């Protein structure tokens, strides 16, 4: 007589079990299949394309009524199993009881619901099955606002789908970056950027306090008291194994139903499969391991030996335009090394994590075409030391010995893109070389390759080497200082690509020959690190020149000068009085009006600095950074306030600019001027950034100077509104901060990267916004008064360590 198999749950895992079982032996069992949902098995992971409208339910059904009928399966769909009686070997559904010889529990998971007030309001939906999907589609048809709680795989797919259907969507995520379990911060950032391009707003570190509404959801309240209006709330904060039945039946349950490698529960006649199980402390949330389990269950039910093993997992996100892949373990750790490749222009990011000469993790964003190959290396624990140099470029560059980077470049097809910023292919470069451009400078001039962000300089040089053969001599470019052979540009590139976040890391990675650098490289590195990693890197005062360490300008006799800010050159009687008082109190020998529209107190003793600052602070004045490689002055003219020719409020704009840019560190000093009309009384066109107001808006030009070189600015862009002018200026400042060599003023940097490239970057709205965001992120730390800070924290260090004048005089 046929044995009776009862299956609880017609999901993706049990669907596979049935296929294997029926393939192997259609006669082995008499099968009854219960399912809580009122339908049979469908491809649950394709619900997101259904939500976004790319597919219909019919497209994703895997087992239709005919299939169940043809295989003689008794279907009890829409019927929850409510109890298992192990002694009597019976299960009870809503519509009656059936007995079994073998039982398979495949109940999947239940969405986790955060226990906040309002969670049960109509309009709050989880995302698990077709009914949820249909509810979202219905809600989206009415338009309005959706808040998705949870920035993991499910939440983001829901958000993208709802946005696709025209809703105004905000994703709330508790952690610092999206999909933190699968992605590192860099990839999380790119993902966020792409989602934002689709109109999905993202708020990280957002903790939901309550869901508000009377009869239907109306809003979501965050811990920080933000209130977000919502017509629909999707809760996608995670899942937990559906174990209620197993618990009630007295099976061993930890987080999931515990099973052995044969997927047998603590009751030998009961098996469990899918997301409801726990095996060796592992839980499962993706289908790949469930399919492995399914095979083992089928074999076990047929009395054949088989064992389930846990394998590496890979994640992909099914949102069009957000191409990501992650697999393995990519946490940082001792003995682990990273290889990182970025192409900022294409939004490509790849990170490989290596341990013991094997790849153990990979994160890819933007271009995941080689993901399967990398995943294979992880799963097979392939030894990679031989191909390490070229590993990051993927399989196309491997094979054939010896594996050196030159061979890899030689193997590149003609249409392989070398320079992402300018879209220059290998073929174009080779043609230029053959036509006589035989060094980097010439190739750059002819093709623009490596002329922008410069990250591909090494590749271009390799193309030169490959094409010219022995005729090619690698240019001996000027190293940063005697501590390293690398140029400033190389080091900056390393800091970004290898994510070097401390001076020791830079010195290690760039082969420093001195233990802690010298007076020439340390200030440069300090700047590069704080500009590239504002949050992670802490400014090192000991690596700064004295002026920036003591926030005052050292004089030839060892005294200091003190220059308070006068925003946009505007002062008040009260400020002037305070300056006069301070000058008298500290016996300042010289008080001078500077060339930058403010007042300099020269000859202040080092010990007096904290006190004179305190007095100036008390009158509302802050450091003028007259000493810094950072924002100096914003010179203005009177503009529309008083002048009969003024076209815009140049004084007001100057003050706004100074208030938003002050405190920021830049490769060299940064001076601005804002003139109210082309008569240009603020001399804006010989500043690093000059703004000349005209009737139709603001002409922003850059690259001026009036020191050792006198230069006129060149037009960057003209914009109609003040708001846009400020955004452009912040963006160009950030671009300069991120790319220029330390001690290059804007005009020198501009000569290297080209004004066209700079214009292109700040004209592109997305790039501009991203630059502004990064600038603001940095300013969230640096837009403060160093004087106040030093008075509070280290006034003591301005005093002598000890006074032995009496002792020594004895």
């Amino acid at each position, binding site marked *: 007589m046929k044995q009776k198999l009862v299956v609880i749950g017609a999901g993706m895992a049990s669907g596979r079990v049935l296929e294997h079982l029926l393939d192997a032996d259609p006669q082995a069992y008499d099968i009854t299949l219960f399912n809580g949902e009122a339908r049979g098995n469908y491809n649950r992971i394709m619900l997101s394309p259904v939500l976004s409208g790319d597919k219909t339910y019919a497209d994703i059904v895997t087992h239709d009524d005919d299939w169940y009928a043809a295989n003689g399966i008794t279907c009890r769909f829409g019927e929850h199993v409510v109890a298992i009686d192990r002694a009597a070997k019976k299960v009870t559904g809503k519509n009656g009881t059936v007995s079994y010889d073998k039982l398979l529990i495949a109940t999947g998971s239940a969405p986790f619901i955060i226990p906040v007030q309002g969670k049960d309001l109509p309009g709050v939906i989880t995302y698990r099955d077709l009914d949820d999907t249909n509810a979202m589609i219905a809600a989206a048809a009415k338009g309005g606002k959706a808040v998705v709680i949870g920035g993991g795989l499910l939440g983001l797919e829901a958000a993208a789908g709802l946005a696709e259907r025209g809703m105004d969507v905000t994703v709330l995520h508790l952690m610092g970056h999206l999909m933190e379990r699968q992605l590192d911060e860099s990839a999380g950032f790119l993902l966020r950027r792409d989602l934002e391009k689709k109109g999905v707003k993202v708020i990280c570190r957002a903790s939901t306090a309550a869901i508000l509404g009377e009869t239907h959801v109306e809003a979501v309240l965050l811990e920080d008291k933000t209130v977000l209006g919502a017509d629909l709330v999707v809760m996608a904060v995670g899942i937990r194994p559906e174990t209620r039945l197993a618990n009630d039946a007295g099976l061993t349950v930890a987080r999931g139903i515990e099973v052995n490698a044969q997927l047998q529960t603590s009751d030998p006649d009961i098996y469990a499969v899918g997301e409801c199980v726990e095996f060796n402390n592992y839980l499962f949330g993706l289908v790949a391991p469930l399919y492995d389990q399914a095979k083992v269950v089928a074999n076990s039910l047929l009395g054949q030996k088989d064992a389930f093993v846990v394998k590496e997992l890979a994640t992909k996100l099914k949102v069009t335009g957000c191409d990501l892949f992650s697999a393995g373990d990519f946490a940082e750790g001792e003995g682990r090394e990273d290889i990182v490749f970025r192409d900022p222009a294409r939004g490509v990011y790849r990170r490989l994590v290596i341990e013991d000469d094997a790849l153990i993790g990979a994160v890819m964003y933007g271009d995941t075409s080689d993901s399967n190959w990398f995943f294979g290396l992880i799963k097979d624990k392939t030894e990679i030391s031989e191909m390490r140099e070229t590993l990051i470029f993927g399989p196309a560059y491997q094979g054939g010995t010896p594996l050196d980077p030159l061979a890899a470049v030689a193997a590149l097809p003609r249409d392989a893109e070398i320079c992402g910023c300018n879209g220059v292919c290998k073929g174009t470069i080779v043609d230029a070389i053959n036509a006589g451009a035989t060094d980097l400078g010439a190739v750059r001039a002819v093709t623009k390759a490596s002329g922008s962000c410069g990250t591909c300089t090494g590749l271009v040089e390799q193309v030169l080497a490959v094409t010219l053969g022995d005729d090619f001599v690698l240019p001996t470019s000027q190293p940063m200082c005697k501590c390293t052979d690398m140029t400033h540009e190389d080091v900056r590139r390393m800091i970004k690509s290898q994510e070097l976040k401390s001076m020791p890391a830079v010195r290690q990675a760039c082969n420093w020959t*001195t*233990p*802690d*650098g*010298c*007076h020439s490289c*340390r*200030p440069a590195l300090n700047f590069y690190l704080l500009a590239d990693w504002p949050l992670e890197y802490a400014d090192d*005062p*000991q*690596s*700064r*020149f*004295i002026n920036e*360490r*003591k926030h005052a300008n*050292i004089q*030839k*006799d*060892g005294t200091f000068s003190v220059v308070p800010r006068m925003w946009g050159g505007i002062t008040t009687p009260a400020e002037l009085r305070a300056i006069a008082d301070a000058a008298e109190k500290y016996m300042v020998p010289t008080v001078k009006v500077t060339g930058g529209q403010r007042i300099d107190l020269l000859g202040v003793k080092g010990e007096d600095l904290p006190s004179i600052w305190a007095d100036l602070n008390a009158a509302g004045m802050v450091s003028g950074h007259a000493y810094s490689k950072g924002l100096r002055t914003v010179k203005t003219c009177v503009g529309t306030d008083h002048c009969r020719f003024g076209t815009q409020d140049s004084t007001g704009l100057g003050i706004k600019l100074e208030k938003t840019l002050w405190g920021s560190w830049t490769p060299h000093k940064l001076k601005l001027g804002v003139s109210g009309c082309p008569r240009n009384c603020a001399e804006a066109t010989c500043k690093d950034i000059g703004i000349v107001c005209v009737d139709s808006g603001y002409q922003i030009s850059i690259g001026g100077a009036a020191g050792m070189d006198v230069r006129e600015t060149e037009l960057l862009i003209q914009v109609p509104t003040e708001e846009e002018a400020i955004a452009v200026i912040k963006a160009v400042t950030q671009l300069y901060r991120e790319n220029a060599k330390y001690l290059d003023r804007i005009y020198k940097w501009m000569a290297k990267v080209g004004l066209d490239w700079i214009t292109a970057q700040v004209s592109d709205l997305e790039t501009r916004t991203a630059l502004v965001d990064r600038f603001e992120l940095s300013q969230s730390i640096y837009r403060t008064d160093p004087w106040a800070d030093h008075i509070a924290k280290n006034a*003591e*260090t301005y005093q*002598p*360590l*000890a*006074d*032995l*004048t009496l*002792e*020594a*005089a*004895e």
Partner: protein
Amino acid sequence: MSDWIDIAALDDIALRGARVVKTALGCVAVFRTATDEVFAIDNTCPHKKGPLSEGIVHGNSVTCPLHNWVISLETGLVQGPDVGAVATFPTRVENGRILLDATTLRARAAA
């Protein structure tokens, strides 16, 4: 004969930093290197009297803040192409305290 004076705690000087000790005949600069070694030298640069305690400390050297002469903290000798020297003074670190030798400080006063 040495006569050690307790000057201050080691932590009163930043790593790769310096502070001055005032004496009747001018300031002595006391340096703390990255490896917690402590050196004391005359604070006045042999070039144009720049205050050496305000310089950047690297390895066992300091760079003068005014015109970048590099001076060895161990020997007081100016490094590289420039020539000159500053006086050095014995130091000790005991139980996290910095000690200077009063005898040599006085000898300096006498010189």
